[in-house]
């Protein structure tokens, strides 16, 4: 598997211009040439909520058991794995000694038998689940570590600080996809975990779809071949990286995830990669302007794995007095600026709605409808239409719906960061 790094930008700045924006597209090649022995490099942990609420209705717990089994069936032979149960505390379900098992027909069957014994009882302290996952992962030297976390409720039995400390403990050790079943959980809470641990967050409103969702998540995880890939961004002396955001397939701000790796360079984590993936990053750098006619390297964006450089792209700045050049807005930069604003407008609008500020909620969600329509983000437009009555999408005129299903609101919230791509004009 190899990587390409492409940069899309308008390199022309007016005289005195300082801000350089670029969309960096990282694409992995589609070749899957991986020997089966390589599967031993990956480890998976499934964390299942076994709090008392999982029995209300009782179908949630039974669906969770089936979902764990479905995910175990997808594990490739040779993958290290474990199942962890969580309430206000956490315990290893399989293997019961808190280590990891190697997937084969026998271990998979044993794990599924253990999963079927899971019963609901107790509270919710997700930080304890994460800490146990760390301890279990550390019993096995894998290069690709990934976890699935399922909950149905709020993190009631520990403080937000305790949860944050647990997240920090996991950061860099494994990635984690989070799923909330039902509508009694907190989107912001799971998003905090999934964002920090470079995973996804989504709602599974109907417990019946849990098994298919778990299988798909595990399938995706099994496709990953390299972990801990980072974007290394070099900038000139006295330049400032204003932000680094993943903008496709979903918006994720990486700006405060920077690790300084040299006097003029810092790394931003991108997590694990499988073949045939493509992600876009919006990089914004403020530079000291040079004279008209001069060219500057505003940023060198390298994709690094340890000390290996997997690919590289250059973000340039050229100062010109030709306004036709300097005023041209790059379509990719404009599009993703709009997609990031769309995500923010949805989250702000839903928050205002929760606070009872209908005026702000209407304005923000109206703006979101307009942006979704303009950018052709049809999935988000559909989710928005379940929360507001759209009077005129082109102008963003909307009315808040009198009653909105919790599941619809949470689906809009969790999926607000999903973006669409534009057809590139070139390259």
């Amino acid at each position, binding site marked *: 598997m190899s990587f390409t790094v492409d940069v899309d930008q308008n390199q022309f700045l007016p005289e005195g211009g300082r801000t350089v924006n670029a969309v960096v597209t990282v694409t992995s090649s589609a070749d899957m040439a991986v020997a089966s022995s390589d599967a031993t490099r990956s480890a998976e942990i499934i964390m299942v909520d076994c709090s008392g609420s999982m029995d209300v209705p009782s179908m949630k717990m039974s669906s969770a058991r089936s979902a764990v089994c479905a995910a175990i069936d997808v594990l490739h032979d040779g993958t290290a794995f474990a199942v962890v149960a969580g309430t206000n505390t956490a315990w290893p379900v399989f293997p019961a000694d808190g280590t990891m098992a190697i997937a084969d027909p026998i271990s998979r069957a044993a794990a599924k038998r253990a999963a079927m014994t899971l019963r609901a009882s107790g509270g919710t302290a997700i930080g304890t689940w994460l800490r146990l996952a760390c301890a279990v992962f550390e019993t096995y030297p894998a290069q690709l570590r990934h976890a699935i976390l399922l909950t149905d409720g709020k993190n009631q039995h520990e403080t937000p600080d305790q949860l944050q400390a647990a997240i920090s403990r996991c950061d860099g050790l494994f990635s984690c996809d989070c799923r909330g079943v039902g509508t009694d959980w907190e989107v912001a809470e799971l998003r905090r975990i999934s964002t920090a641990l470079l995973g996804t967050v989504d709602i599974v409103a109907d417990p019946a779809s849990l098994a298919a969702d778990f299988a798909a998540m595990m399938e995706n995880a099994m496709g990953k071949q390299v972990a801990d890939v980072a974007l290394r961004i070099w900038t000139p002396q006295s330049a400032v990286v204003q932000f680094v955001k993943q903008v496709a397939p979903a918006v994720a701000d990486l700006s405060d995830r920077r690790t300084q790796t040299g006097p003029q360079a810092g790394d931003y984590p991108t997590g694990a990669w499988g073949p045939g993936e493509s992600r876009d990053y919006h990089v914004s750098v403020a530079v000291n302007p040079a004279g008209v006619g001069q060219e*500057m390297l505003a940023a060198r964006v390298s994709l690094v794995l340890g000390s290996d450089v997997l690919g590289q792209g250059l973000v340039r700045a050229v100062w010109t007095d030709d306004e036709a050049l300097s005023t041209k807005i790059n379509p990719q930069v404009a599009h993703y600026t709009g997609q990031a604003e769309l995500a923010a407008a949805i989250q702000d609008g839903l928050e205002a709605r929760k606070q009872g500020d209908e005026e702000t909620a209407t304005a923000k969600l109206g703006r979101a409808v307009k942006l979704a329509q303009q950018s052709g983000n049809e999935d988000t437009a559909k989710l928005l239409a379940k929360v507001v009555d759209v009077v005129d999408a082109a102008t963003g005129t909307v009315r808040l719906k009198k009653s909105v299903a919790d599941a619809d609101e949470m689906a809009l919230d969790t999926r607000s960061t999903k973006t669409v791509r534009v057809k590139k004009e070139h390259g």
Partner: protein
Amino acid sequence: MDVTAEAAGAACPACGRTTAEGDAFCEFCGAELAPAVDSAAAPGFVPACPVCAADAAITPAGVTADGYCESCGRKVPTGRDHVELDLGLLAGVTDRGLRHSRNEDAMALATAEVTAGPAAVAVVCDGVSSSPQPDDASLAAAQAAIRVLLDAVRMGDDLQEASREAVREAATALTALAGPAGAPSTTFVSAVIESGAGSSAPITPSTIPTVPASAQTAGEGTGPGTAAGDTVIIAPDPAAPAAGADPAAADPAPEQGEPDGVITLCWLGDSRAYWLSADGAQRLTADDSLAQEMVDSGLLGEAEALATPQAHVITRWLGADIAEPRPHVSRFEAPGPGVLLICSDGLWNYLPEAEDIASLAMPAALSDPAGTAGTLLKFALDAGGMDNITVVLVPVPLTQPRSSL
């Protein structure tokens, strides 16, 4: 990029054996001992960022393979963007400037050792931006011309005729570049500087009248000058301000003794030659430009003419579309110590008056032509650097500066 002349009598650069002083080629292996040098692109980029090197506050860093400074990020010049040549007897610099994406100026320099003493040759060409491949055109013309001129100096040929032949050879080189896109074109100015009275047959004042340099009109039909192709002897300008010097020293008096040097000039277009001295700096060439035509016809003063939009439209050039180029040729006898400057309009646009250039360049140019070329370049860059800039300086009389001996 610095190129330093091989001192005469030094080891052959090809076989290492000691050569005889004054030899053009190695007696053993036949290698050319002091070949002409030019501003052709050196491969790759300069090894250090000139901006950071000049700033004490910036930590020095390298230059990436793709030509960016690892410290400030600026694109550093390529070989062709900024070339410095220093042959001791003469030195030059050519630079992209600040507003153009590439350097379409070119220069070529050479030295020779003949019986009369050392000799120097310089060619500066400024590619015509409206023609295709102007950068290739200027370099090809400079390279072709310097070969002809250097051979002529070594052989003791007539340098005025050799100058015309150099232009013909340069034109042939441009014809080879021409394609469907059109005719690559360039301005041209060459100078051959000989020690003393020169090795070629001097033209006696009785056969060709001395034209006061104040006329400076060698263009055809552009004023009281002579027909193109005629030789003009430019004597020191009696009208030029004699900055505190004895006015008699500036009198045209070729019969009064041997001059400090003899300069054979040949040009087409608006690249210029100047004589810089403390007591009589003057321009030695007349532009083939609409501005010059307006001045010559008395329509406008020089400053007004240069301010008109068409001022820089040149009326003659060297190009594949010109079947028989008719260059101006002139001979100048240096009345005393001074410095010959040849340059492209990237310099003189900001400083057209000879006295002004002299006040900036003298007396430093007499002893440090390379450093002073850099001073004049910096002046043009600081003034805006709107065009490519090329500056060549030749101190007269020709002497190897001590530092390079």
